């Protein structure tokens, strides 16, 4: 089935966050810190108001009516919307100018009397831990925001008894989400309520954040999501929302803001850079015995999703493999750098780089093929994970790896043959692997979905599961259509509007297809149950919906072995949203809390996957080109094959970027000219193999794909470089200069 919102996307009619604002909207522009750490004073805003008659309001921290702090955790609201006296990263907002656009854009820092006293900034994890400078946040004296810990059995003893041990250290860079739609939106005050039109991955979280920032009730805030031009985790945190909300609330006029690209890049979150060390051991016959991991994640100036990364990494860092002894530690460290937040995988893609590299070294040490080694150790049904969770269903890792085997053997051979005849250009084939828990870690994360039919027969899915391009608008309609027994073509949908939909949680953690998908199935079944009951028909009755434009003429025809039963919809009293019949479903994936050793069942299900990549390295230039890539993923059940393939292909592109070119550096790559993302010319030929090991809890067996699509790519490419050249890249991305230097150091 093609996307339900596909037509407006190919005609240009889709309305994104910068595509609409009420005509009388005022313009808002934030003034941001050019320094990573500084004190500041604002001398004379009055002068600006005099010089620029088009400026109506200058907002500072003193204007905030509620709590001037936001953050995704109820107990950590550490990031000011407008900084007061002191900034902690380059790009932090200190002032917001509101008025006529031209005037707003003309005001300079000199006009504002804004003076900065730059302070020495904490850059990188080592500086954060050194204790030499004042802590980033005064209440966190050691700059350690959060720690994750997992201990399963006894790694020391296991390493001592291991036949082979491999170890290493790696670092990765900050990565920009690079969605092509910069943040934008507007707010308007209607009576004692605010309506905010914005691009977001989490309308309900936005609602709560804005309400606490303004000091009003969440019910007074309505979030109306625009179509979202990409998110990847970056639109989970708020951006323009609180600024336009406060301005509209104070002024009583619509206020809009559109971030410029550099503004979007400096002020919003990144993928965490990490410094990590890891060690793995195995027996003589190739069974993994122990895994140890330590990762210091640079979480920047504010919490954002740092604690989530610290929690997720220990659970996943030993990969989709059975390891009897595991010790893993992670820390989220505060620095004066861009806040690192949620980005497709929450630290797992970084940890996988260490994991797969060590598996390759172990396989080599015991003389086993790297793919065979993985197959031998892959998690299977009945195994227990590093958190000691028993995996009972939907564990397709072995099938994923097996499905790649024939290509693996052929490609490796072809690459080795190629290298026999080529001196400067070398080819290699590497393997990467992934598993990923669907849903929030050990936390309740319910979704509620509603579906309703009105008197005219209009059938609407009230879908709070934000579609950010991945296609929840479409698959929720598909799932609901199947559950209800009416064709998808008869559905209309509402996406994410907090006045019309129920809370379906955030579009994150590969949870929407699994969690909201199940809620949608339950909603469809709930509505079907009511229809069957009303018609006094049998369970397996066939439904037909007669939809008519004029009021009062919608009909449901319920056909079973006893004949046709007709429900005249206009005869039923309207309820919620004007619908006469409403189905509702709620699903909260079952998890348990993790104990002090990180033991428990943090996720209800896991996605699995593996990639093999063939690369070509030019040893004279240091460039790496990915020639072809095969990706196998266990998705439980494919609801929409085109969309699942699209998720995997897109994940590969982002993984390729992370592996080879993407590196966000303040003052250097704060725009899309210097920050490099893959173009069509960088993409390999891709083959996709979908494995369907159904998850009984999921909708028709489905589980998530969003994040494990990306995780194996970088490890596979890096392993390909190793196979091609013999060099191990320890700092990602493997840019030409790094590859070239490593080749020189290795004397190649």
């Amino acid at each position, binding site marked *: 089935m*093609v996307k339900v919102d596909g037509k407006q996307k190919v*005609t*240009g*009619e889709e309305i994104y966050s910068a595509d609409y604002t009420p005509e009388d909207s005022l313009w808002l522009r934030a003034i941001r810190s050019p320094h990573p750490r500084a004190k500041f004073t604002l001398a004379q805003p009055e002068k600006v108001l005099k010089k620029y008659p088009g400026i109506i309001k200058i907002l500072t921290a003193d204007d905030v009516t509620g709590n001037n702090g936001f953050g995704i955790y109820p107990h950590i609201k550490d990031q000011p919307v407008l900084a007061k006296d002191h900034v902690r990263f380059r790009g932090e907002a200190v002032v917001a100018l509101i008025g006529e656009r031209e005037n707003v854009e003309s005001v300079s820092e000199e006009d504002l009397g804004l003076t900065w006293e730059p302070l020495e900034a904490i850059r990188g994890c080592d500086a954060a831990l050194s204790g030499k400078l004042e802590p980033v946040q005064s209440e966190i004296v050691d700059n350690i925001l959060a720690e994750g810990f997992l201990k399963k059995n006894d790694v020391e003893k296991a390493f001592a008894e291991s036949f082979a041990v491999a170890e290493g250290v790696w670092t990765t860079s900050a990565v920009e989400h690079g969605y092509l739609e910069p943040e934008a939106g507007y707010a308007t005050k209607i009576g004692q309520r605010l309506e905010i039109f914005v691009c977001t991955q989490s309308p309900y979280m936005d609602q709560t954040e804005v309400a606490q920032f303004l000091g009003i009730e969440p019910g007074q805030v309505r979030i109306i999501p625009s179509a979202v031009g990409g998110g990847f985790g970056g639109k989970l945190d708020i951006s323009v929302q609180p600024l336009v909300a406060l301005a509209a609330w104070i002024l009583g006029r619509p206020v809009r803001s559109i971030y410029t690209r550099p503004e979007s890049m400096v002020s919003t979150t990144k993928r965490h850079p990490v410094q990590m060390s890891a060690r793995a051991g195995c027996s003589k016959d190739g069974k993994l015995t122990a895994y140890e991991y330590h990762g210091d994640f640079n979480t920047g100036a504010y919490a954002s999703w740092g604690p989530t990364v610290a929690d997720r990494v220990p659970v996943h860092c030993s990969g989709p493999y059975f390891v009897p002894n595991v010790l893993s530690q992670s820390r989220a460290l505060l620095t004066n750098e861009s806040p690192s937040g949620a980005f497709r995988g929450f630290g797992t893609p970084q940890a996988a780089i260490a994991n797969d590299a060590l598996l390759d070294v172990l396989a080599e040490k015991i003389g086993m093929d790297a793919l065979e080694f993985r197959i031998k150790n892959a998690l299977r049904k009945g195994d227990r994970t590093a958190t000691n969770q028993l995996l009972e269903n939907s564990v397709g890792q072995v099938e994923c790896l097996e499905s790649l085997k024939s290509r693996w053997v052929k490609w490796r051979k072809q690459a080795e043959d190629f290298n026999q005849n080529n001196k400067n250009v070398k080819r290699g084939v590497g393997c990467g692997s992934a598993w990923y828990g669907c849903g929030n870690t050990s936390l309740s994360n319910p979704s509620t979905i509603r579906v309703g039919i009105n008197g005219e027969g209009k059938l609407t899915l009230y879908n709070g599961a934000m579609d950010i391009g991945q296609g929840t608008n479409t698959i929720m309609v598909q799932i609901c259509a199947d559950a209800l027994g009416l064709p998808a073509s008869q559905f209309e949908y509402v996406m994410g509007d907090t006045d019309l939909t129920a809370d379906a949680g955030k579009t994150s953690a590969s949870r929407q297809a699994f969690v909201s998908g199940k809620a949608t199935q339950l909603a469809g079944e709930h509505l079907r149950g009511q229809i069957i009951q009303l018609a006094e028909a049998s369970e397996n009755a066939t439904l037909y919906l007669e939809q008519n434009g004029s009021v009062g003429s919608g009909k449901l025809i319920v056909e079973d072995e006893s004949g046709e039963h007709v429900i005249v919809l206009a005869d039923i009293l309207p309820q919620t949203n004007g619908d006469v019949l409403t189905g509702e479903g709620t699903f909260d994936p079952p998890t348990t809390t993790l104990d002090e050793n990180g033991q428990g069942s943090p996720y209800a299900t896991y996605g699995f996957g593996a990639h093999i990549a063939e690369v070509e390295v030019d040893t004279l230039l240091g460039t790496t080109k990915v020639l072809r890539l095969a990706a196998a993923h266990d998705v439980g059940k494919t609801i929409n094959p085109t969309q699942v393939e699209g998720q995997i292909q897109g994940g590969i592109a982002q993984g390729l970027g992370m592996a080879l070119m993407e590196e966000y550096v303040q003052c250097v790559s704060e725009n*899309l000219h210097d920050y490099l993302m*893959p173009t069509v010319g960088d993409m390999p030929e891709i083959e996709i193999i979908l494995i369907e090991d159904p998850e009984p809890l999921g909708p028709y067996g489905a589980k998530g794909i969003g994040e494990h699509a990306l995780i194996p790519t970088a490890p596979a490419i890096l392993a390909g470089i190793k196979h091609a050249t013999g060099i191990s890249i320890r700092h990602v991305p493997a840019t030409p200069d790094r590859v070239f230097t490593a080749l020189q150091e290795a004397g190649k």
Partner: protein
Amino acid sequence: MSTTEKTTVSFILNDLPQTLAVNPLRRFSDVLREDLGLTGTKVGCDAGDCGACTILVDGEQRYACLTAVGQLEGHNARTVEGLAKNGDLTALQQAFLDEGAAQCGICTPGMLMAAQSLLDRTPNPTEPQVLDALGGVLCRCTGYTKIVEAVLKAGQTSSSEPTPSSGSAVTHSAGFCVAVQVIQKLLKLYSKQDKLLLQNQLRHQDPLLVHAW
């Protein structure tokens, strides 16, 4: 010329004549979106890096954000709104829809226009030609695979129906935009790996490559 002085600019937009009283130095992307209400042309960077604003001028790809509206005098421009006629999708749009080439869809208008410029010239292109034509537009969702498949499919289905805009250029473009075009061409390198190499070289020459916003 003052930055606010207006002048009259006449051109063809989506087959219809347009005459605007505008500051000729304004970005054409802004004029399209703000003055003409044609928000199908997206702005992702305002700097000629992302290609989301790609439109056609005399059948050639052009970044609307780097095109001053004054440059259009006497020329023929086409945006995504000029593709479908009376709600009927073109073969290219239909292929994008059927193949799942649009995910979030924000790059789609630019991708469509880049592909259209190719199909107008080369109705049945090869894969390398498609890769070359799409090299100036970034997509962050799809990994490009389905976009390439859609363009190839459209090439197979629509080889007999070139759009009316192609080859209908009115006059040659004014000399002052040559520099911009050269820079655009330089930026449109085949892959980011090439650009990376170039960038590394540049960085060594100019270590203080610092950008303000």
